[in-house]
Each structure stands twice: as C-alpha cells, then as structure tokens.
C-alpha cells in the first residue's frame, strides 16, 4: 500500500466536498462559526486556501492552538532567570526562540551571551546534558498532549543530575470547555486537533456534545481531512444531532495511544496554567509529578516572583488567541509587528495566527 496522504489532497474529492458543504450551509440558512484549536490546522488550512474556497457563511476561527503563542511571558522570564543565576544552558524548540518574554525573548538573551540551543526533540537536549556534565541543562518544554507525551517518556526514563525540564505544557479538552463557557465569543462547533487526538483519542471530547450540545469533528490536516471535518460539523448542526465524529480514523483511535496516555498520567499532574494575556486557566496545565521531582526545574530552582508583562502595548494576542479578533484588526499587524519583527507571540511561530495571516493571506497594505 502506498502512502495514503496524496489521496487526501484529491482535487476531485475536494470539489465534491465543497459542493456538499455549500448545500449544508444553504439548508442551515444562518452563518456558522467553527473553531479549531490547533496551530497546524490554521497553517495547513490557510496554506491550502480553504478559507477562500468554503462559502462565506462558514467562518473558521482559530482558537488557542499554537502552544508557543499561548506560552506566558512568565515561563520565558523564569527559564532566563535560571540561566542567568545558575549559568544553565537552555534547550528548547526553535519556535520558542523569538516569543517575547516580559523584557526579552530567548533570541535576544542569546545575543547577550546566554547559552540557548535549539533542539528537535527532548532526547537531543538529554544528549547535550550528557556531553556537558558540569553544566546545568534545562529543557524548556512547550506543547499540548502530542508533545507532552514525548517529554513524559523522557521524564520517566531519564535521570541525569545536571538535567531538568521546565514544563509549560497545556491541555486541549479543558481549554475547549473554558472557551465554550465564555460569553464573549460565539461559535457553533469544534474542529478537534488530529495529532493531539492520536494521543488522547476521540473519547475525551465526549463531554462537548453531552454537556454542551456542541458538535465535534476530529480532523487530520490534508485539505480533504479538513473539509470532511467541516462537512461533518455542518451536517451535525443541520440535523441538530451533535456528537464526536472522528474523520481521522486512520491515525486516531477512540481510546487514543494507551502507552502515551500511561506515560502522561505517570509523568505529569494536572495543574492551573497561565495562558498568554488570558490569565490563569484552571486545570489546563501539566506539571511534572512529585515522583519525578528530581527532573522538575520548577522544584530544582527556587524561582522568585518576577515582574510580568504578557502583552506589549497595543498587542491584541489575547483576543486573537481565542478567535475574538482577527490579525488584521490589530493596529500593530504588519505595521510594527511583522514576521521579521514580532511584537506579539502570535506573529512568531509559523503556526501563529498572525504569522500565518502575514505569510499566506492577502494583506491590504
């Protein structure tokens, strides 16, 4: 069997799905707003031009699905404090480098001599720790369940005295619940993130239709995957039969990846977490569990309270992160805040809503 990915880019299937989507929205008769909570969805759907292909009555809003965008400046400030006071080497993903801290980004700190190294994986950070036994190495670990499960695997099996992990991990399903409870954003269904779901499965979303009467479609990332998700959500809305529809079954099981879930449950405990500009959201974070305190940077170092600036003046990242405001509605967008000079976190990562809009969408300059 050949790689099936190509089939999910079929022009023929895409065209037929678009017709079906048009028919559904015609029958619904009202505009529909669907939220995704995945930076990769935002990137891939914009790159494929799907917003311009679907009917204008169907609005796709980007929720807080880009993990480096939702990472609070507090986390960046704290890892930099450890580097400055303990001479530690910071290792992290490339996406984190230019995300603004309260006073500086990791990239700016690197410019003044802090040793910060970009790694592809937590495993690479561990190799750096093994090669530098006399220096403290911190892995600044950011991401949702997909990435947390990888970190969890290493938390469980790694014990190197000079290595610790600063967890900035966050959870998707409880964040979805908080988004549904807000009365300042109106939307009618969730396109659930495909790769988070490979880990947690489709079951953790059951509360969404059951408790909130809200439709969910678990979708992959090729154009056909995303359109199948949109079609499913519209059909559920038209029939008023909300459920969790998994249209990414080739990689997502109902029960998820059991080995990864066990690793997550063992390595982490659920905690409150600060989301950029949005304050502390209860029970949406993952901290390293007591059992593995020896690898927890937050336990290893006594980090003091540091003055926090999560949003710089004029930055609307907080509203953009929850789909309340579009990038073009921010006064800084493509003026002082640009991909080559980001002021807000959403302009940094190639999955950030503002960066995606700046890179792929038509901009009225």
């Amino acid at each position, binding site marked *: *069997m050949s*790689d*099936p*990915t190509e*089939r999910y880019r079929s022009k023929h*299937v895409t065209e*037929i*799905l678009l017709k*079906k989507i048009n028919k559904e929205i015609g029958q619904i008769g009202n505009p529909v707003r669907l939220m995704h909570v*995945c*930076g*990769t969805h935002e990137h891939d759907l914009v790159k494929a031009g799907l917003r311009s292909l679907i009917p204008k009555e169907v609005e796709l809003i980007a929720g807080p699905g*880009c*993990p*480096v965008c939702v990472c609070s400046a507090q986390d960046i400030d704290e890892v930099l404090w450890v580097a400055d006071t303990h001479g530690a080497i910071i290792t992290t*993903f490339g*996406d984190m480098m230019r995300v603004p801290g309260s006073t500086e980004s990791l990239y700016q700190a690197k410019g003044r001599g802090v040793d910060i190294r970009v790694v*592809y*994986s*937590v*495993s*690479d950070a561990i190799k750096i720790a093994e090669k530098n036994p006399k220096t403290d190495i911190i892995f600044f670990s*950011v*991401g*949702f369940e*997909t*990435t947390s*499960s*990888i970190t969890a*695997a290493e938390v469980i*099996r790694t014990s190197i005295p000079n290595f610790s992990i600063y967890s900035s991990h966050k959870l998707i399903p409880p964040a979805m619940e908080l988004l549904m409870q807000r009365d300042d954003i109106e939307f009618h269904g969730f396109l659930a*993130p495909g*790769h*988070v779901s*490979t*880990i947690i499965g489709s079951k953790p979303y059951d509360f969404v239709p059951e408790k909130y009467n809200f439709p969910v479609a678990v979708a992959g990332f090729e154009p056909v995957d995303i359109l199948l998700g949109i079609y499913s959500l519209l059909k559920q809305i038209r029939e008023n039969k909300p459920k969790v529809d998994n249209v990414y*079954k*080739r*990689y*997502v*099981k109902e029960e998820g*990846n*059991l*080995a*990864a879930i066990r*690793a997550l449950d063992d390595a982490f405990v659920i905690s409150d977490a600060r989301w950029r500009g949005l304050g502390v959201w209860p029970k949406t974070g993952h901290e390293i569990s007591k059992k593995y305190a020896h690898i927890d940077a937050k336990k290893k170092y006594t980090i003091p309270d540091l003055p926090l600036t999560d949003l710089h003046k004029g930055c609307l990242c907080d509203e953009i992160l929850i789909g309340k405001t579009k990038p073009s509605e921010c006064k800084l967008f493509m003026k002082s805040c640009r991909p080559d000079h980001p002021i807000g976190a959403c302009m940094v*990562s190639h*999955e950030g809503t503002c960066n995606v809009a700046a890179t792929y969408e038509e901009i009225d300059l």
Partner: protein
Amino acid sequence: MCLAIPAKVCEILKNNRIIVDITGVRREADISLLEETLEIEDYVLVHTGFVISKLDKKQAKEDLKLWDELLQA
C-alpha cells in the same frame, strides 16, 4: 508544533528504535510510545523523533469506500 509527519518504516533496530523514510530522508525514530508491533513498509506518524501512531491500513481502505458513498450520494 503538534506537527507530525507521515513516514514509512524502513528498518527495525534494537532498543525501541527504527529507521523511517520521511519523504526520501532516512532518520531514526523512537517507538517506545507505541504498543502495536511494526513491520517494514508500515506507515507511522512521527513527532519530534517519536512514533505516535501507526496508520490503520484497514481504516484507510474503509475511508476510500466511505468517500465513494459520499461522492455518489
């Protein structure tokens, strides 16, 4: 960030490691987070050096059947 890349299994190594082909590039991946057994030519999703999911071939074929129904409906 939750980007995961489809890859083909090329070689099964020792210690929970395999070699995968990602669009023509061969690299090692860790399979300690996968319960299913892998065979050469299986497709998997790789995220930051770890295999997080194996392609369900039966389901992928099933998808094609569902499309046919959808396309004819």
